[in-house]
């Protein structure tokens, strides 16, 4: 199992802060699975570049591998500072 977390605008859009899922091979595959949920999920994960991903609290790319027990986070581009 992996832990998914959602932040900021994305959390509000999806109406969920975190969930547990079966592990995926990498970020790209996980996104594909989430998009397949349709509706707001297809919308949120549809347009490239609008959602950033982190695996175990490090910025990730679509090809970053995911292992059982990992924490995977999705969020919009950051706006701090």
């Amino acid at each position, binding site marked *: 199992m992996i832990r998914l977390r959602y*932040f900021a605008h994305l959390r509000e859009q999806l109406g969920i802060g975190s969930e547990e899922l079966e592990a995926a091979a990498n970020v790209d595959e996980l996104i594909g699975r989430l998009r397949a949920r349709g509706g707001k999920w297809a919308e949120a994960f549809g347009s490239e570049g609008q959602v950033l991903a982190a695996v175990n*609290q490090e910025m990730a790319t679509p090809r970053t591998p995911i292992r059982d027990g990992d924490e995977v986070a999705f*969020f919009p581009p950051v706006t701090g500072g």
Partner: protein
Amino acid sequence: MYYVKVQRESLDIPSHLAELWNDNPRVGAVVSFVGLMRDINAGEQVTAMTLEHYPGMTEKALQRIVDEAGKRWDLEDIRVVHRVGELQPTDPIVLVAVASSHRGEAFRACEFVIDYLKTQAPFWKKERTADGERWVEARHSDHNAEARWKA
């Protein structure tokens, strides 16, 4: 390990600055950046702001940025303190302060840290306006600023 901190309390800027040079007579230059909440953004009046972050990742991201700055330049110390939670206009949001023997290094490193913080550290701003709340959108200019350091 440089000092990085995420906190809800207001920033004690004088203490952080003094810590950079007290007891260290090798410091000849301290350059600091303070980012503050403005009351206008994207042409609209903003009355308050909520800053959300990703606890755990935020601290790691900040530490990674300051470590990289410490590798690129000859520095005596760096401090980064960033607020989260509720903010009002004129509240300081972030302090980046860099101490070095000479000023050129301190200027470069300070701007490097804030440029990377703006694109790499997981903070998100939500503004309150007369029309309700809205998430602040990322700026292209911030990505251009970060890209300069990759040349």
